[in-house]
């Protein structure tokens, strides 16, 4: 067989082996978890009918709507507050961590590592950690949102600063500007719009996450959902879900408009 033929033969063999390996892993995993894909698909029509019979809010659910709305607003403000607070701290860390504006490599490294740790711990894990420390309260939820957001925004802000302002920072250094001058006159004006865009994105994400965090920490709309769900009042739980979807879509719409205005 010529060399080029042997090469393609080897490539095909490699992909066949990878495919067989994946099949084997799937088969083993489904045996262990006793999951059957075909049964899962077969159940789909029943699930959909169940959805439409049980998850349409009834009058009793609508009576509860003011309370749901109350909790919903609480959740929205919690997310906004956690995001904005985190953004302020993130800005400081990003300035310290950015290659363009860091004071020295050691502090730069430390702030990158701190942000990276915070970002890589999932928000649900943060919620569990603070649940153990502070018990079920709104504050616990706030902290979980805060720490994850801080990690994420620091990373996003560092990239924004490096991308948007490195050349003007150089120019201001050449002019004899001091460090505070450089931050306020070059870094902030050139990266602020992009930073606000990231903050808006994070507010959207946090409203979704806050629901999940609320389930664990017993606060906000997530708690509302878990009460209705556990007391088998599916129609009220459904109203919670529907109003959440409406809120998330509205917030996204608003932040898209804001983004267009600032960018």
């Amino acid at each position, binding site marked *: 067989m010529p060399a080029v033929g042997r090469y393609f033969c080897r490539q095909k063999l490699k992909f066949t082996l990878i495919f067989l390996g994946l099949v084997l892993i799937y088969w083993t995993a489904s045996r262990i978890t006793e999951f059957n894909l075909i049964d899962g698909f077969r159940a789909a029509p029943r699930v959909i009918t169940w959805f439409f019979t049980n998850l349409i809010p009834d009058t009793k659910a609508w009576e509860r709507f003011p309370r749901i709305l109350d909790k919903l607003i609480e959740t929205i403000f919690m997310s906004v507050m956690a995001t904005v607070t985190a953004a302020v701290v993130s800005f400081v860390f990003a300035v310290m961590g950015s290659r363009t504006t860091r004071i020295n490599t050691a502090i730069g490294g430390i702030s990158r590592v701190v942000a990276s740790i915070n970002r890589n711990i999932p928000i649900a894990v943060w919620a569990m950690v603070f649940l153990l420390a502070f018990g079920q309260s709104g504050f616990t939820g706030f902290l979980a949102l805060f720490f994850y957001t801080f990690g994420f925004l620091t990373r996003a802000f560092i990239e924004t600063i490096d991308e948007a302002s490195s050349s003007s920072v150089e*120019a201001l250094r050449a*002019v*004899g*500007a*001091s460090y505070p001058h450089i931050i*306020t*006159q*070059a870094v902030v004006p050139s990266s602020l719009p992009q930073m606000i865009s990231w903050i808006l994105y994070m507010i959207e994400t946090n409203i979704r996450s806050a629901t999940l965090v609320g389930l664990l920490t017993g606060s906000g709309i997530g708690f509302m959902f878990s009460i209705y769900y556990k007391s088998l009042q599916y129609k009220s739980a459904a109203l919670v879900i529907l109003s959440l979807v409406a809120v998330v879509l509205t917030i996204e719409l608003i932040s898209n408009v804001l983004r267009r205005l600032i960018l």
Partner: protein
Amino acid sequence: MIVPILTNISVPKAWASADYFNQEVIEMAQLEVKNLTKYYKDVLALTEVNFTVGKGEFVSIIGPSGSGKTTLIRCINRLVDATDGSIHYEGTDLLTLKGSPLRHARAKIGMIFQHYNLVTRLTVIENVLHGRLGYKSNIAGVLGIYSEHEKEKAIEVLSLVGLEKYVYRRCDQLSGGQMQRVGIARALVQDPAIILCDEPISSLDPSSAKIIMDYLRKIQNELGITIIVNLHQVDVAKKYAERILGFNSGRLVFDASPSDLTTDTIHHIYGAEAGELIIN
């Protein structure tokens, strides 16, 4: 280079004492670079560079990419820290400065960049006023407080570079040539004695490039500001400069007037093959 200049000046006999000459020599050398050497980690960028620049000279630095032109320019205002040697600017050694003395020295040295390095989201006038930050206290600079005199000066330099109609325009709405003129205005508002230009026309089309070079010449002629400009274009350097410094692999290999720049010397600076392309 000192000797021919002194013979051109008719000096009264009574002044022609040793003292007078010494004084004249000191005044001539506005910028004095001695044994300047720069390593980037292990890579040599500049080696033992020596030259002096007189007040009001138009000096052009040429040489192939990676020959150390940009490093040299950036060593002067300390955007890059030299490994060894000294740079005296109006008597003070720039390489030993730190903190606010360094800021004050930089305030007196203008710089123009290839990519203009403006805060493009801000307006023209705001960018020009950035040139005053070297003279500002932290609080005044952070809050962006500029005196009426500074604002008038900014408008004045903008009309000098023909941008009086664009004062309140955002910089991201300007063309490349206009942005570079904002860069020149920002340098001028510093009230500098010297302006360093790092390939100011490399991102511009030929007609914008000519406009920029003409403004640099005008600045040198009318305001007596020393111009040091890195150029990729040998013909432009020959046309505008009074003196050319040629670099190759971090070494200063040519230092004379443009008329001395012959085919041989261009080959020497750029290497034989590249040199032929440049001349043809």
